[in-house]
């Protein structure tokens, strides 16, 4: 279902990203995911009486990097307290930024050419994490609640878009592009599944040309896919409500991924007077212009620029090739591609292999350096390795590192002499006269049959293209 002609959805996203600092925003505790509960805490991030926050310089730097990458203005800013009671918030207030954020007024250009306004990107601290046991499994009605404060005080930047998005696909594209930018700045690892990037969506529907209508905020959007599905569901729900004479209530709604529906979490009337006031324990944050410029100068190329550069290497890329370019940039493996091209590998092969073989956790392919990647593709291009062999070598290098040629030898990937291949093909022709006959009569599909036989006989080490060449030569 989609909205009828004349109607449109209006979407704005609030994206929280954890910053990749060594320590928390206001204390020296480690900022790392996955440690034993409550082992990365101190008086400050536990909010013990008498403790005081001290701002992390690196977090400020990364926040500025995000703002500058989004073409925002870095300004003198202040911190405020956002007051509300919640057990995973040690001080029962969150230190955030309010009327004077560090970054304001930027934009982000999407691959389709549309421009999305950025209202602000401000610094704040994360909360701890609650686990509710027994009963309903939510805070109300649980038998017991456990709190892990390791995450309390982890630095966050909240990036608030303008309500410029008009479809769920555009919202998804925005989130994906923003994720790429956050990773390119080094500020974030962009992992939605670990919660290091979290997205809330504000959705409303209206008749084109009329003022924006009441919006609902969607939470629990844990992947780009759920973001898109939730927005579509919510726009349809609101339209159906309005079309049947109902009124949309301003509220916070929870996305249920399994059931594919949103449901009321919190109605606006019950909520929330946060009693913001300026945090008296911190002073104004006024980065020196030279510092701002140093951060700007340190920014590497952003995803759009990197895609354009790689695409240019391909001349006029096909849609599949452009997908590979996007994947390379998403994975952040431009360096591997560049190394391969510098070693003489064709750009098409370098980009395709990087896109397909370098996915997954970068930590799990630490041995596959750009140099090793380049050398392997070089062996493939010169025919010393078949495509299948090259992929096996890449996978082996990823796990244990080493020299590609040596790894290939250890795997037993000797280049098959052409005479050897020819005699193998001849033997197979003799053993399968019927299939050979059909191939001779022009049924090219049988080439696959013979290639398969060769691969089985060589345990995948033969070069498929070379097999076909021999077959063609025999057919005459």
């Amino acid at each position, binding site marked *: 279902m989609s909205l009828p002609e004349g109607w449109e959805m209006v979407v704005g996203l609030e994206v929280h990203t954890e910053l990749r600092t060594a320590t928390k925003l206001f204390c020296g505790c480690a900022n790392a995911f996955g440690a034993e509960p409550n082992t990365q805490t101190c008086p400050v991030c536990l909010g013990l*009486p*008498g403790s005081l926050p001290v*701002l992390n310089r690196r977090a400020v730097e990364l926040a500025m990097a995000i703002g500058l990458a989004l073409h925002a203005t870095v300004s003198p800013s202040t911190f405020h307290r956002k007051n509300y*009671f919640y057990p995973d918030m040690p*001080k029962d207030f969150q230190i955030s930024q309010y009327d004077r954020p560090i970054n304001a007024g930027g934009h982000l250009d999407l691959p389709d050419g549309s421009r999305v306004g950025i209202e602000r990107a401000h610094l704040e601290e994360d909360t701890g994490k609650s686990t509710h046991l027994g009963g309903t499994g939510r805070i109300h009605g649980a038998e017991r609640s456990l709190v892990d404060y390791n995450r309390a005080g982890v630095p966050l930047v909240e990036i608030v878009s303008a309500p410029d998005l008009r479809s769920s696909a555009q919202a998804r594209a925005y989130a994906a592009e923003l994720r790429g930018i956050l990773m390119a700045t080094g500020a974030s690892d962009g992992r939605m599944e670990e919660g290091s990037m979290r997205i809330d969506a504000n959705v409303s529907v209206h008749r084109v040309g009329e003022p924006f209508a009441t919006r609902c905020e969607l939470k629990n959007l844990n992947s780009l896919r759920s973001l898109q599905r939730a927005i579509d569901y919510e726009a349809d729900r609101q339209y159906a409500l309005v079309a049947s004479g109902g009124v949309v209530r301003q509220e916070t709604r929870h996305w249920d991924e399994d059931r594919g529906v949103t449901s009321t979490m919190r109605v606006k009337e019950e909520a929330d007077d946060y009693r913001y*006031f300026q945090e008296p*324990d911190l002073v104004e944050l006024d980065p020196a212009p030279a510092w701002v410029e140093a951060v700007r100068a340190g920014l590497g190329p952003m995803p759009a620029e990197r895609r354009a550069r790689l695409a240019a290497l391909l001349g006029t890329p096909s849609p599949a090739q452009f997908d590979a370019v996007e994947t390379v940039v998403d994975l952040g493996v431009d360096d591997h591609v560049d190394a391969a091209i510098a070693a003489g590998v064709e750009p098409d092969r370098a980009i395709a292999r990087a896109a397909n073989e370098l996915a997954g956790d970068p930590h799990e392919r630490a041995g596959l350096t750009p140099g090793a990647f380049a050398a392997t593709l070089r062996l493939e291009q010169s025919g010393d390795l078949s495509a299948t062999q090259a992929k096996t070598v890449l996978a082996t290098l990823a796990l244990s590192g080493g020299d590609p040629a040596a790894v290939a030898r250890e795997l037993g990937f000797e280049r098959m002499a052409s005479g050897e291949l020819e005699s193998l093909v001849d033997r197979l022709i003799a053993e399968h006269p019927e299939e050979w006959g059909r191939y001779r009569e022009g049924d090219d599909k049988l080439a696959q049959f013979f290639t398969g036989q060769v691969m089985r006989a060589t345990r995948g080490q033969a070069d498929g293209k070379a097999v076909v060449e021999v077959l063609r030569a025999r057919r005459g």
Partner: protein
Amino acid sequence: MNALEVAASVRAGATTAVEVVAECLERVATRNAELNVFIHLDAEGALASAARVDERVAAGASLPLAGVPVALKDNLCVRGQPTTAGSRILAGWRPPYDATVVGRLAGAGAVALGKANMDEFAMGSSTETSAYGPTRNPLDPTRVPGGSSGGSAAAVAAGMVPVALGSDTGGSIRQPAALCGLVGVKPTYGLVSRYGLIAFASSLDQIGPFAHTVAEAALVLEVIAGHDPLDTTSLPEPAPELSSHLDDGVAGRRVGLVRELVEGADPEVLDAVRRAAETLTRAGATVEEVSIPEIKLGLSAYYLIAPAEASSNLARYDGVRYGLRVDGPDVEAMNVATRTVGFGDEVKRRIMLGTYALSAGYYDAYYGQALKVRTRMIEAFARAYARVDTLLGATAPSVAFALGAKTQDPLAMYLSDVFTIPTNLAGEAAVSVPFGAGEGGLPIGVQLLGPARSEARLLAAARVLEAEGGR
């Protein structure tokens, strides 16, 4: 017992820190039951610390406060020692860390005997809002010692310790110093680190010393002052030199006797301030009468700003992590039950005031307006300091009042701080020094005020008044 003499004697080996501390502990044992000064005494720990001081002295360390016993207001965190801020809600809580000032005192050779009583979360002017019962004034046990640092003041006045630390948010050092006949210093905001001070109103709180003499107060302040990387609001500079300027005198100084800082004071207090002015004149200062009308706005601005900050600072006492927990059917009920039982009436009154002042729809009329008054106060003081370098007034409107006299009337209690609050709002420095006596021979304090970082000058002026003694 004088801190300078104790330190000199311990350094010289004429006496030991252990002997000094033992003597003080005896005095505590004699009078604490009557006066309720220490709400936690760490006799064993103090003697052990004293023994370590003696070892350091024997090893050649030159410690400015060698063997000097001190009392710490109970809102200063001491590792492993009960620290309650005078509240039931923190009963049994032992901090895992030391306040910066506690570490600096220990480093200088001072020995903390324990935690001194205080108004709950420093909210009060008589030490009667403590969950652990009121403290009595050692000079007249039917009267209050002032507050909120009444326990610290009483500890010094009773001779239990030569010096003590308190905290001053709206007068909580200066007013009890005046009521107990002591010197009390409210340092410039940021001069002393607040790390480890349980917050009441963060933009106003400052830690400072109590002592019998200006010289002792100056020495303690030198030890605890100076930049602390753990407090972002601490001034980016080392501790000022104070002791070397004590005899600078006031010759050539311009002093303004502030009309609004004596208005409404008892006649005997007004008389003491006038005689202080004459003393300063005789010592070579020029004294003129000045008016700073904005001072009258201070009390109402303070009773919006301080409760607003307190409502946020005290939110963390929710029963989840430490201190008192009163269970309930769910988290919210537990929060409410804990806070209902754990906080006293005055604290609840201020949390409600502050919550209201910050609420949507009221912020501009109350908190926002108070911030504007605060700015006007700062500007008014700056104008005054363009003409004179020191201001003079009363510290408190009266001598120590009777226990219970104001507990039923919060506004009357709040008025005890009317002369001291403006300095906190401006973030500036002030000293209260005993000058003369009033009703029943009870001491009167006069207040010297100066701009930020004027402690050396204020203490030199206080020393001139101290020498005269108001007699």
